[in-house]
């Protein structure tokens, strides 16, 4: 304006500083501790970018209309002013016009003394908040807000990510021992427990469902469900999900030790898994798609993509598509998805008490998902002639293949000759399917 460059310092507050520090910690953990670098570097950088005021990278434009008729008695804000949610823009003789989001004023179309009708344009606001588009429609005007809107909110990137995961997933260990499917299903208990606890904590149904799905330990599923049900908390649920996946080696062992005896942890499992034929591996994605989508139609985008990716892998004739999905495509989608998720965390959005509560409920979801898998494995042992090591149930908490690796390490601690990795991969990949179905169930009921 008037040729003067407005710097960001005026709008910078302690919250931005704190978020930038958190972003830098993510980047530090990725680089020096090798913790999920492919996720934490772009997420951390996105967090940093969005907390530098006036960068505009995550901005949405919103036309504010008068909620009621009246005469403007006094203007409380001018163009360029920044405000938090609920800030008073002007006083009318019939009440006040308040801001429905946080952000700043771009232009104002009303002035003191003017009479306005209900629905008249009050002005244009700029916000970084994810709003419910049916109530408060916004238009993305920044680089990452556009990627976020058309990639995440339009449900493009998470299902495509699922396609790549399908190409990366070998269902062999699960098909070799289909009992393990049950363990992956049991782990979804964590999703529903966290859902009910979130309801008790005062979250709305759609918010509680988005929080519960963190227990599915599946990044794209969590993002997908939250984007449809409760986009305003997407930063918190995505961060909870991704960081707990990185923390699986810390979360899982105490749960396993609490629920198993030393004798159970020492149960030896024979190395040989049944040989799974190529035909079985081809039929599995086809049959699963048909059955699951007929039962839970709203899981179609996730399960459909997951299974077509898996068919690329197993068909034997689409090696090019398989290779692209496993390498180039998954990298491209990861870049867009994680940068956009990082950028969904401006301080005003993220630094709320509800975020802390979401993080706590997320741990509960993860731990109880693992616990449910372990308990079902113990229950199954009451009937099985050839006992399974109940620790593999903990791998039902998806987070492929991290949780299976943790089970392998725990198993070898008890008995050096015991290799549970492949046995744990069964519940592990079953958990990924289970999470997508659990997400579909929530969407079917709530969306």
């Amino acid at each position, binding site marked *: 304006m008037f040729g003067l460059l407005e710097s960001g310092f005026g709008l910078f507050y302690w919250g931005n500083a704190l978020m930038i520090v958190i972003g830098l910690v993510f980047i530090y953990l990725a680089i020096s501790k090798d913790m999920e670098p492919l996720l934490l570097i772009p997420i951390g950088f996105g967090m940093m970018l969005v907390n530098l005021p006036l960068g505009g990278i995550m901005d949405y434009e919103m036309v504010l209309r008068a909620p009621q008729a009246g005469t403007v008695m006094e203007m409380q804000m001018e163009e360029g002013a920044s405000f938090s949610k609920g800030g008073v823009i002007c006083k009318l003789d019939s009440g006040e016009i308040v801001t429905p989001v946080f952000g700043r004023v771009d232009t104002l179309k009303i002035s003191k003394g003017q009479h306005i009708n209900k629905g008249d344009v009050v002005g244009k606001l700029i916000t970084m908040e994810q709003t419910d588009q049916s109530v408060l429609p916004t238009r993305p005007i920044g680089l990452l807000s556009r990627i976020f809107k058309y990639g995440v909110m339009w449900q493009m990137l998470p299902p495509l990510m699922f396609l790549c995961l399908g190409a990366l997933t070998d269902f062999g260990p699960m098909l070799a021992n289909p009992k393990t499917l049950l363990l992956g299903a049991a782990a979804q208990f964590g999703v529903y427990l966290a859902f009910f606890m979130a309801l008790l904590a005062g979250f709305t149904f759609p918010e509680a469902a988005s929080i519960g799905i963190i227990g599915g330990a599946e990044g794209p599923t969590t993002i997908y469900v939250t984007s449809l049900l409760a986009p305003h908390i997407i930063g918190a649920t995505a961060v909870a999900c991704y960081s707990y996946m990185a923390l699986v080696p810390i979360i899982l062992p105490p749960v396993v030790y609490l629920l198993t005896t030393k004798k159970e942890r020492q149960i030896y499992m024979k190395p040989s898994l049944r040989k799974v034929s190529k035909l079985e591996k081809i039929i599995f994605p086809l049959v699963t798609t048909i059955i699951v989508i007929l039962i839970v139609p709203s899981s179609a985008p996730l399960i459909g993509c997951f299974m077509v990716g898996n068919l690329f892998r197993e068909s034997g004739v689409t090696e090019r598509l398989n290779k692209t999905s496993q390498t180039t495509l998954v990298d491209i989608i990861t870049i867009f998805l994680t940068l956009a998720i990082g950028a969904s965390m401006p301080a005003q959005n993220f630094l709320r008490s509800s975020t802390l509560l979401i993080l706590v409920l997320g741990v509960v979801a993860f731990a109880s998902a693992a616990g449910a898998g372990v308990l079902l494995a113990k229950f199954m042992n009451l009937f099985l002639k050839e006992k399974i090591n109940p620790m593999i149930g903990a791998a039902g908490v998806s987070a492929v293949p991290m949780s*299976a690796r943790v089970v*392998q390490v725990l198993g070898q601690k008890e008995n050096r000759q015991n290799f549970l*990795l492949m046995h744990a991969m069964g519940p592990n990949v079953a958990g990924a399917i289970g999470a997508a179905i659990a997400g579909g169930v929530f969407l079917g009921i709530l969306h």
Partner: protein
Amino acid sequence: MEISAPLPGNVLEILVKVGDEVKENDELLIIEAMKMENPIFASADGTVKEIKVKEKDTVDAEQVLIVLE
């Protein structure tokens, strides 16, 4: 006595050579599976008689890796 692969994967590193004396639970070789290094341990004391795989070989579960005497 035969030491066989407890899981399918790739032989990352062989830590013993023919003629070596090994004790129970000594590391013999490392198999990489699911991007994880899995050390394979001797199941009893003995002498390495034969090594049936090379580094970078792909192995199946239950494939014989090393023969101990």
